[in-house]
């Protein structure tokens, strides 16, 4: 794969992810699972009450605050990126070393 192909693909990813945000200015961009919860009540023709509350919400007695939720999602991303970057870094350096 050529380097230019890689760059084109990265730009393409960016566009796919960002264009909806600008194209659909009025959309809420809520989660697809929230839409699904509403749909559950809709197809049943009656309100559906989940019979179990998420542990974190039971402990907090409330929903996880939005900012804290995004923090935890960031921690998840961070852990993943850290591991990938660590191993990729080692691989890249090793290859450079062995070619000298």
């Amino acid at each position, binding site marked *: 794969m050529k380097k230019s192909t890689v760059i084109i693909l990265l730009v393409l990813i960016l566009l796919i992810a960002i264009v909806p945000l600008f194209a659909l200015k009025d959309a809420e961009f*809520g989660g697809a699972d929230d839409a*699904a919860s509403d749909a559950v009540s809709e197809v049943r*023709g009656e309100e559906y009450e989940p019979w179990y509350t998420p*542990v974190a919400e039971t402990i907090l007695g409330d929903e996880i605050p*939005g900012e804290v939720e995004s923090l*935890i999602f960031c921690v998840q991303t961070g852990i993943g990126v850290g591991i990938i*970057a660590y191993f990729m870094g080692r691989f890249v350096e090793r290859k*450079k070393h062995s070619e000298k």
Partner: protein
Amino acid sequence: MKYLKYNKKLIAFMAFVVTMAITPVAGAMHIMEGYLPLSHSVAWFVVCIPFLVMGYRSIKGKVDENRRNISMIAIAGAFVFVLSSLKIPSVTGSCSHMTGTGLGAILFGPAAMSILGIIVLIFQAILLAHGGLTTLGANTFSMGIAGPFVAYAVYKALSKSNKKVAVFLAAFIGDLFTYIVTSLQLAIAHPASSGGFATSAVKFLGIFAPTQVPLAIIEGILTVLIFVALETYAEAEMKSLGFASGGMK
């Protein structure tokens, strides 16, 4: 020097990935806590058990076979961690996230992904109230088992003709299939009062599938990119997993 440049791009790309995750968006998309009746919760757990046993054996086998495989398993697991944490706006005006399970399924075979999938799902169920403990079995089945098995089948069917296309389609179809299974699981649990299972299935597919298509394309591209990066820089590891060399030119 060439590699150093590529590495800088990689770092820039990682930085972008992290920035994307900071954008706060509410909600997401495994089956929500408490949304499956108890009998379904238990049934999906039971279905998962043999796959989890297979997965454990598969991972243990790969590690015993060659210690080098540990770093590759870590990368595959981390890839699932990253991709399933990024909630991306889609053409339907909802957000959803990717699964990231295609890469591992291609590298290690599908069984191993049940273990990597359930780790991520437990993390999200406990800390994020995203997905749930009662729905863990059903979600593990869709994300850690059904998706990866389909991805693996697609890769095996196509890899002889064009490897990159095979990787792309495997990740793309595996991602979509995960959400098709999620929709069907919800439809079985919540048949419509008029029209039953089929009506519900159409309804849930209508919510998950169109939202997921652009994300599945992104997942396909990302999986190809990391696959090529591994072929380029982790030749020895890829060889020990049975992949002939290829990679960047």
